[in-house]
C-alpha cells in the first residue's frame, strides 16, 4: 500500500517508471494553460480594456490555489482515484475553455458603466467565474499528476515549466496565423495533444474516445455554435474606437493584419477627420479643411490613428494651425527626426513645412507593413518612398541613443494620442518614449540650437499628464545642460486640447521667443512658460481649490464661499443654509439666490455665467488649468518643484525608466477618498483596478490559505514539523518568481518595444530555463542542504545586479534586428531563470522524499497563490517604488527563503520516532 501512495506514478502493466508520454502530457497541458491565459489577455485587449483582462486572469489563476487546498485536505481520495480524476479533468479542460469563453463573450460586461450601473459588478464577477472554471479543471489535473510524481518531481516539473514556456512561444507564433477571435485554436490544439499523450500513457481507451468527443465538442462550441446561433466570439465593446468606424455608413475596411504586434485594421471613410490640437482660429483663416482625406488605423480596436492622403499644398494650409508647427517657425530647412511615425501626420507636416530631410522611427513592424501595403501606399502617394524620408524600423529613442547624427528638430507629437483619450482609463503601461532618460537622449541628439518639440493631449481638469511631462522634460534638461534650463523652454497650451513643450539646445533668443509668442497669440493658444515670465498672481489659491474640487467633502459645498453673492451666511443670517433648504431661502416664491435676474438686479447680462449667478469677469482671464501650468513651470525653473508637487492634488512625479508610467495619479494615501466619487477618476481606473485586483486576490488567497489551516492544521498536518517555515518558503518562491517574471516583462519592453512580445519572450525564457534548472537540481538533491544556500545567494546577487545594470544592456540590444533581439533577450534572462528553477523543485522533491504528501500538494498551491498576489502587487509596487525595487524585492524574497528552506528538510515526526526506535 505504501508503494501505491508514495512512489512514482506508473502506467498499468508498463515499466514502473515514466515514459516521455508522461512528460509530454504534463508539458502540453501546462502549455495549454499558459496559451489560454495569453488568449484571454488578447481577448480583453481587443474587445475591452487590458487591465480588466489582467484582473480576470490573475483571479482565475487562483484555480490552482483552490485545487491544491482541496487536494491537500483530501489527499487520500486523490491518490486513490487519480486515474478517474485525471481522465475527467484533462478531458473537460478543452470544452470548458471553449464553452466558458463563448459564454463570457455573451456576458454584457461593459467597464464604462462599472461604477454607475450596479449590474456591471456582477457581470465582471461572472467573467471571472467563467474563466476560473477551465483553470480549475487544469489545476486539478496537474495537481493530481504532481501528487503521483513525488519521486520524480524534478523531471515532471521540468516538463511542466518547459511545456508552458515553449507553448507561450507557440501562441506568439499563432498570433501571426489566427486573428484574435480564432486564437483559441492554439490552446485547444495543445490541450488535445496533451490529452492524447496522457490517455495513451495511462492506457485508457475509453478516455481516448471521450477525449475525441470532447475535442469535437470544443470545436463545436468555439466555431460551429457561434455561427449557427449568431453568437460573437469576441465582443468588441461599442465604446472602442473601431466600433464607431464600423458604423460610418461609407466605412470600408481596406487593410487588416494580425500578429503579436496587434490586431491592426485600417478603415476608409469620409467621416474621419484628423487635425490634432488644431487652433480654433483656423476656421476663420483658411478656406476649407480637406475632405475625404484620411484613413483611420486601429490597433487592438483602439484608435483611430490618422493616415493622410497625399494632398495638394492648398489643402494643407491648416498645418500652419497645428501645435506641432511651432518649431518650424524658427528653423529653416531643418533636418527633422520624428520619434514615432504612427500614421505619418508629423512627417507630412514636416515635409510641408520646409524640412530638408525627415528621419522617422516606427517600432511597430505591423504599422510599417501596413504603410507599405499597396492600398495604403496608393492613398498616401507612397509617402515612405519620398526621397527625403528615411525610416528607422525600431524605437526612435534607441536610434537617437546610438547614432552620431544630429537633428535640427526632433518631434514627439501625440504619439500616444489614442491612449490618452480613450475611455476605460490608462492601463498601467510603460511609456519609455516619455521618460527622463528618453528626453535626455532626444536633447543630446539635437544640433546646437536644435529644437525638441513634444505635444501631448491636455484634456484633463485638473491637469495631470501635462504636469508629469513638464517635470520630466525639465529633469532631463538639468541632466543635459543644467546652466541653461530657464532659457531653454517655451510652453503653450490650448484649453482642453493640447500642450506643446519646446526645448532649444543652448536656449532661445529673445527674437525667437517673440516669434513663438506671436504665434501663440495668433492661434489663441495660452502661453504657459517663456523665459523671463513672471509668476502668476491668479495661482495663489488654485492648488487648494483643486484639492477641494477632487477630494472635498462637499461641505464647502455648492457655491464659492468667498463670493458675497453666494455666501449663505450673508443671505441668511439666521444660520440655516438656504441653498439646501429652498423653503427657507425663499418664503415668498421666486428664489433670490437661484434666480439670476434677481441676483443681479443691475441688469446687463446676468446669464453670462448662470451657474454661479455672477457675470464673468471682463477682459482676458486665466483659467485655473493654465494658472497651474504656469505655477508648475515657475516651480520647475526655480527648483522648488518638490513643494509644488507635494501640494498638488495628484501625484505628478516625473517619468523615469524606473517608473515609466503616465497612470497612477491618485496617491495611495488618497485612495479611500475616491470610493464615493469614482466617476471623477475614470481616466485612472486602470490604476484603481490594480488596487482592486490586489485586494481581491489577497483576500481570496488568504481564504485558500485558511482552508487547510482550519480543517487540517491540528489533524492532517499535526505530524509535520516545520510547516510554518515550509509555507513561508513556498510563499517566498511564488512571490519572488512572479515578481521577476512580470517585472522583467516591463523592463524588456525597453529592447522589444511591444508588451505582448516582451511578455511571451519572458514567459518562454523564464519557464524553459527554470525548467532546465529544476531538471539539473535533481543531481544536487542529496547535497541540497549545502548547495541551496549558494543557489539562493546567487539568485539574490543576480537580481540585484540586473536591477541596477539592465537598462543600458537592453538599450543596446534594442538597436539590433528583431530576431537578434529575441535571442539576446533569451540569453540575458537565462542565468537567473536557470537558478530560479532549483528552489521549488528541490523543496517539493524533499517534501515527497520525506513523504509529506499533504504538505507537498499544498506547498504547490501556496506557491501558486502567492504568485497571483505578486502579479497583482507588481503594478502597485512598480508605480510606488519603481521597477528596480520590484526586482530587488524579488531578490529579498529569495534570501528570506534560505532559513525557511531548512524547515522543509525536517523529517516527519512519525519517521523520526521510527528511526529512533530502529
Amino acid at each position, binding site marked *: 500500500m505504501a508503494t501505491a501512495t508514495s512512489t512514482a506514478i506508473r502506467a498499468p502493466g508498463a515499466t514502473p517508471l515514466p515514459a516521455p508520454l508522461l512528460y509530454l502530457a504534463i508539458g502540453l497541458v501546462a502549455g495549454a494553460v499558459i496559451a489560454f491565459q495569453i488568449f484571454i489577455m488578447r481577448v480583453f485587449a481587443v474587445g475591452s480594456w487590458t487591465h480588466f483582462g489582467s484582473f480576470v486572469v490573475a483571479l482565475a489563476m487562483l484555480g490552482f490555489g483552490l485545487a491544491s487546498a482541496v487536494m491537500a485536505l483530501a489527499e487520500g481520495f486523490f491518490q486513490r482515484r487519480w486515474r478517474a480524476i485525471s481522465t475527467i479533468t484533462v478531458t473537460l479542460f478543452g470544452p470548458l475553455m471553449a464553452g466558458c469563453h463563448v459564454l463570457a463573450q455573451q456576458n454584457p460586461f*461593459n467597464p464604462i458603466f462599472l461604477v454607475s*450601473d450596479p449590474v456591471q459588478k456582477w457581470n465582471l464577477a461572472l467573467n471571472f467565474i467563467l474563466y476560473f472554471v477551465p483553470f480549475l479543471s487544469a489545476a486539478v489535473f496537474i495537481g493530481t499528476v504532481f501528487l503521483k510524481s513525488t519521486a520524480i518531481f524534478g523531471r515532471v516539473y521540468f516538463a511542466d515549466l518547459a511545456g508552458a514556456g515553449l507553448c507561450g512561444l507557440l501562441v506568439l507564433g499563432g498570433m501571426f496565423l489566427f486573428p484574435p477571435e480564432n486564437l483559441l485554436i492554439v490552446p485547444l490544439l495543445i490541450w488535445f495533444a496533451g490529452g492524447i499523450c496522457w490517455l495513451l500513457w495511462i492506457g485508457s481507451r475509453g478516455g481516448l474516445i471521450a477525449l475525441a468527443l470532447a475535442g469535437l465538442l470544443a470545436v463545436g462550441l468555439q466555431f460551429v455554435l457561434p455561427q449557427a446561433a449568431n453568437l460573437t466570439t469576441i465582443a468588441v465593446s461599442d465604446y472602442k474606437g473601431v466600433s464607431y468606424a464600423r*458604423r460610418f455608413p461609407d466605412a470600408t475596411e481596406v487593410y487588416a493584419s494580425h500578429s503579436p504586434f496587434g490586431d491592426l485594421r485600417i478603415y476608409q471613410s469620409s467621416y474621419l477627420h484628423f487635425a490634432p490640437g488644431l487652433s480654433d482660429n483656423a476656421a476663420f483663416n483658411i478656406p476649407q479643411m480637406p475632405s475625404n482625406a484620411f484613413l483611420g488605423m486601429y490597433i487592438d480596436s483602439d484608435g483611430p490613428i490618422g493616415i493622410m492622403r497625399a494632398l495638394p499644398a492648398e489643402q494643407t494650409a491648416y498645418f500652419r494651425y497645428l501645435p506641432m508647427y511651432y518649431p518650424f517657425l524658427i528653423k529653416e530647412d531643418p533636418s527633422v527626426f520624428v520619434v514615432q511615425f504612427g500614421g505619418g501626420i508629423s512627417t507630412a507636416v514636416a515635409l510641408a513645412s520646409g524640412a530638408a530631410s525627415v528621419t522617422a522611427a516606427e517600432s511597430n513592424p505591423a504599422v510599417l507593413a501596413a504603410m507599405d501595403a499597396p492600398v495604403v501606399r496608393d492613398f498616401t502617394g507612397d509617402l515612405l518612398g519620398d526621397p527625403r524620408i528615411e525610416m528607422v524600423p525600431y524605437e526612435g529613442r534607441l536610434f537617437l541613443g546610438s547614432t552620431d547624427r544630429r537633428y535640427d528638430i526632433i518631434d514627439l507629437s501625440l504619439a500616444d494620442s489614442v491612449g490618452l483619450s480613450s475611455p476605460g482609463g490608462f492601463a498601467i503601461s510603460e511609456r519609455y518614449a516619455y521618460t527622463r532618460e528618453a528626453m535626455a537622449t532626444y536633447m543630446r541628439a539635437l544640433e546646437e540650437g536644435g529644437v525638441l518639440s513634444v505635444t501631448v493631449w491636455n484634456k484633463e481638469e485638473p491637469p495631470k499628464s501635462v504636469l508629469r511631462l513638464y517635470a520630466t522634460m525639465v529633469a532631463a534638461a538639468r541632466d543635459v545642460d543644467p546652466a541653461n534650463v530657464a532659457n531653454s523652454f517655451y510652453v503653450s497650451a490650448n484649453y*482642453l486640447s493640447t500642450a506643446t513643450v519646446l526645448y532649444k539646445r543652448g536656449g532661445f533668443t529673445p527674437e525667437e521667443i517673440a516669434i513663438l509668442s506671436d504665434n501663440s497669440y495668433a492661434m489663441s493658444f495660452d502661453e504657459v512658460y517663456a523665459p523671463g515670465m513672471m509668476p502668476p498672481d491668479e495661482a495663489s489659491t488654485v492648488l487648494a*481649490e483643486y484639492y477641494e474640487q477632487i477630494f472635498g467633502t462637499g461641505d464647502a*459645498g455648492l457655491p464659492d464661499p468667498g463670493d458675497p453673492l453666494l455666501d449663505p451666511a450673508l443671505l441668511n443670517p439666521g444660520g440655516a443654509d438656504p441653498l439646501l433648504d429652498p423653503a427657507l431661502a425663499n418664503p415668498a416664491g421666486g428664489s433670490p439666490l437661484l434666480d439670476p435676474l434677481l441676483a443681479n438686479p443691475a441688469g446687463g447680462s446676468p446669464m453670462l455665467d448662470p451657474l454661479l449667478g455672477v457675470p464673468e469677469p471682463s477682459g482676458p482671464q486665466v483659467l485655473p488649468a493654465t494658472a497651474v501650468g504656469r505655477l508648475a513651470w515657475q516651480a520647475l525653473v526655480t527648483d522648488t518643484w518638490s513643494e509644488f508637487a507635494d501640494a498638488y492634488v495628484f501625484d505628478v512625479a516625473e517619468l523615469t525608466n524606473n517608473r515609466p508610467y503616465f497612470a497612477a495619479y491618485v496617491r495611495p494615501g488618497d485612495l479611500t477618498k475616491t470610493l464615493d466619487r469614482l466617476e471623477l477618476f475614470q481616466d485612472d481606473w486602470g490604476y484603481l483596478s490594480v488596487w482592486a485586483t490586489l485586494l481581491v486576490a489577497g483576500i481570496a488567497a488568504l481564504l485558500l490559505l485558511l482552508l487547510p489551516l482550519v480543517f487540517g492544521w491540528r489533524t492532517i498536518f499535526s505530524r509535520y514539523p516545520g510547516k510554518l517555515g515550509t509555507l513561508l518558503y513556498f510563499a517566498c518562491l511564488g512571490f519572488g518568481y512572479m515578481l521577476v517574471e512580470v517585472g522583467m516583462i516591463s523592463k524588456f519592453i525597453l529592447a522589444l518595444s511591444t508588451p505582448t512580445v516582451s511578455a511571451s519572450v519572458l514567459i518562454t525564457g523564464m519557464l524553459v530555463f527554470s525548467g532546465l534548472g529544476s531538471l539539473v537540481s535533481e543531481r544536487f538533491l542529496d547535497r541540497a542542504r549545502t548547495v541551496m544556500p549558494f543557489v539562493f545567494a546567487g539568485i539574490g546577487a543576480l537580481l540585484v545586479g540586473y536591477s541596477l545594470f539592465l537598462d543600458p544592456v537592453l538599450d543596446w540590444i534594442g538597436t539590433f534586428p528583431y530576431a537578434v533581439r529575441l535571442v539576446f533577450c533569451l540569453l540575458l534572462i537565462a542565468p537567473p531563470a536557470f537558478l530560479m528553477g532549483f528552489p521549488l523543485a528541490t523543496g517539493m522533491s524533499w517534501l515527497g522524499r520525506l513523504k509529506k504528501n499533504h504538505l507537498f500538494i499544498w506547498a504547490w498551491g501556496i506557491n501558486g497563490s502567492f504568485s497571483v498576489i505578486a502579479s497583482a502587487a507588481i503594478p502597485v509596487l512598480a508605480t510606488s517604488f519603481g521597477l528596480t525595487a520590484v526586482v530587488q524585492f524579488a531578490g529579498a524574497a529569495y534570501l528570506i527563503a534560505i532559513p525557511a528552506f531548512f524547515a522543509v528538510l525536517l523529517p516527519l515526526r512519525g519517521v523520526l520516532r521510527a528511526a529512533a526506535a530502529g
Partner: protein
Amino acid sequence: MNRREFMATTGAAAAALAVPGAARADVPFPYNYEMTPPLQVGQRDAYIAWMVENRGENPTYLAQHWARYEVLVANRDVLDDRNKRAFLLTPREEFVLERNLSRAYEHAFLDIGYGVTISGPHLVGRMTTSIDVQMGEKVLEVGTGSGYQSAYLANLTNQVWTIEIIAPIAERTRGVYDGLIARGYNEYLAISSKNADGYYGWEEFGPFDKIIVTCGIDHVPPPLLQQLRVGGTMVIPVGPPGAHHVLKIIKEQAPDGTIRVNRSDIYGGRIVPFVPFTKLEGDQIVGVHAE
C-alpha cells in the same frame, strides 16, 4: 432593433407600469411656451397633478422626475425658471432604452446602444443652463443620440437642429420624436433632425446662436466655428463618458475686427468644489452616498 420595435417596446413597458390608459394617452392640452408646472421645491403632489392633467403623463415617472428635479435644484444644476420648466416638461423615460426604464431618472449616464450614452440629468441641466438659450434663438446640436438634449432645448426655443452620425440612432430617435408628436407633444415640431456627418454642421440654417457638440474629436470642427454667430456660444463635453468637463467656446470680434474664440469651461474659470451625490429620502435631500 428597428424604430417600430423600439417604439413598441418602450411604449409597452411604460404601459405596464402605468395606470391603464394613462401611459399612451394623447397629451390633453396642446403645448405652448407659457404653460408652466409648479416649480417650487416641495410641491411634488401639485406637480404630479398638474402634469397628469395637462400632459397626461404617468404618475410613477412623474414622482421620479420630481425627485431628481429637487436634487438638481439643490445641486444648482438648473438655476433659472426657464431651465427648471424645461427639465420638468421633458419626459426622460421616453428617451432611454427599455432595459433602463427603471433608471431613467437616476443621476448616472446610461447606455443607449452603439457606443453612445444619454448624459446624466445633472449634466444636461448644467450644460444647457450655461448656454442660456433664449426663445427664438437658433440652436444646433451635433450628436443627437437619445434625443433628450434637443427635447429639453425645444422647451427653451422654437428652433432646434440636430445631426446624428450613426444612422440607426438617427432613425430611432426621429421615430421617438414622431411618436411623441403624434401623441400631442407638439413642442418637438421645433426639432429638425438629420443623419449626416456633424463635422460640417448644417450650413443652410446657420449661423447659430448656440451649438452643442456631444461627439468626440481631436479638434473643434472649423465648419461649426464658422456657423456660430459672433457672440454665440458653443459647448463641448470633453473626456470619457460620465467624466466630462464641458468646454465652453465663445466667438468674439476683437476691436481690430478679427474674429477670435475664447475657451473656458462652463464654470467661467472657477474651480467648483466636488458635490457629493445626493439622494432623496422621503422629502429630505440627504448627503453623500456611493452610487
